[in-house]
């Protein structure tokens, strides 16, 4: 089976500073790929390349190719807006809009021109259910999304992203600000979601990577030192540095 997304010899520079060195990796369809590594190793940078969020920063340079379904996502004529609809993102800090819960989830669809309110209501409910938030907020849909707890806000952001029906979900340390219970809920959620979506997640939490992912890539100083099936990486790491990192000797 072809990988859903693919990075081929990707290097990335912020000005003169090189943040990624010749990274090649596959992100397989309907599986969860985790990226681990110490902070500053380029995980976020890599993830943001996958839906072209890096273009918000000026003075950067990219080498190599990134593919979605075998097609270059940055070829001439490729539309960034369309790409981001297919490749959604959940950020490290929950960032719901200062809008009602309903409007947060409906937002992407509205921007796509949907105004039919019954259809929108269905989509909002479906997305909130998928994000395992529906039961908690179904009576408060017209309250501000900012009034929710951190864990609920993050699930709201997941629902908001699911509502535009992406194919790939990128998550950048989605649990780093959350309590253990919220974290577990989101991990369970990922297991549900991978049936329909392809997921790439950055995490600094080793147990989370080991528990929740199928594939795992280890970043160090901008290089992808090791990549493989999660079970393999955690039981028989090939690289000494990977072993040191996952056994907690540095990081």
């Amino acid at each position, binding site marked *: 089976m072809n990988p859903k997304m693919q990075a081929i010899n990707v290097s990335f520079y912020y000005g003169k500073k090189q943040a990624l060195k010749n990274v090649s990796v596959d992100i397989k369809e309907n599986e969860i790929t985790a990226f681990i590594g110490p902070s500053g190793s380029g995980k976020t940078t890599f993830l943001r390349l996958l*839906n072209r*969020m890096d273009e*918000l920063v000026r003075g950067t340079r990219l080498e190599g190719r990134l593919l979605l379904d075998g097609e270059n996502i940055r070829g001439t004529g490729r539309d960034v*807006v*369309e*790409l*981001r*609809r*297919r490749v*959604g*993102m959940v*950020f490290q*800090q929950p*960032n*719901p*809009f*200062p*809008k*009602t*819960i309903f*409007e947060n989830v409906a*937002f*992407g669809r*509205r*921007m*796509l021109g949907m105004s039919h309110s019954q259809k929108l209501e269905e989509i909002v409910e479906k997305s909130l259910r998928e994000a395992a938030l529906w039961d908690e907020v179904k009576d408060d849909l*017209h*309250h*501000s*999304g*900012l*009034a929710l707890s951190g864990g609920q806000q993050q699930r709201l*952001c997941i629902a*908001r*992203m699911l509502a*535009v029906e992406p194919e790939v979900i990128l998550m950048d340390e989605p649990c780093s600000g959350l309590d253990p219970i919220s974290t577990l809920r989101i991990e369970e959620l990922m297991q549900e979601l991978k049936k329909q979506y392809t997921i790439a997640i950055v995490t600094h939490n080793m147990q989370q990577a080991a528990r929740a992912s199928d594939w795992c890539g280890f970043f160090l100083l901008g290089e992808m030192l090791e990549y493989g099936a999660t079970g393999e990486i955690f039981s028989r790491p090939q690289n000494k540095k990977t072993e040191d990192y996952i056994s907690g000797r540095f990081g």
Partner: protein
Amino acid sequence: MDKEITPLQPTPAWRSTQKVSPRVTQKIAFTVIWICGVIAILALFVIVGYVLVRGGRTITPEFLFTAPEGGISGEGGIATVIVTTIMLMLLTVVILTPLGIAAAIYLSEYARDNWFSGVIRYGVDLLAGVPSIIFGLFGYVVFVVALHFNFSLLSGALTLVALELPVMIRTVEEALKAVPHSYREASLALGCTKWQTIRQVILPAAIPGIVTSIILTTGRTLSETAALYVTMGGSSALPTSLFSGGRTLALHVYYLAMDTTAFDKAMGTGIILIVLIIIINLITHRISRWYQKRMGIKETE
């Protein structure tokens, strides 16, 4: 003044032995601050009290509901002046707000940091410090004379727009910049265009700041005299179109005080002006609060 050269004096004994303790310094600081506060509040009470006492008697239904009759004794009321003030205020806001927001969006979202935006920002800051009579003369030359708008509501409003635009642009720009970057990222990551992001996320989130900016500039409209003196004429009749002149409350205060003996009526007009400002503030805040609650901008009540 020549400085006297004082020979080095031995440090006084009390100084060398016992420095002023921090506790005492703190006491002194508190006292000074407290006295300053009291002076400021007293000044406010004295001014408002004086205006109320001198002007209060003149405020009768007749004063509110009849037009000024002119003359050296300042007969009549202020009905037309109140209406003119509100007309000018609305006209100014309607022209000013879209221009100010558009320019602020350009500066904050598109130009960010090129030399052109630098020049604009500098110019805007510079203009904000120019005395209003200079804008008045500019308005007189451009709107009243060159464009043949004559002394009119329109000339007055356009002059005020020129006068207030810099403040509006800078305050709205600040409001836009204060919208967290994470909202922009969230919107773009959903596959929204930059314009959708600005229109649907950034502007609504900046509404409280924009409202403050409108209140600020409206306060300026209500209190401006010099710039309007040379662009609106001073007719106390009700304007019948954008092209007829008129007189605002603040101008009326000026006319009454300078050209008539009705000093108390000037104070009375001042009271009405203050009340109008308070009412407008209250209404605007209400609307803003209602909007924020309905849109879910604020967390809770």
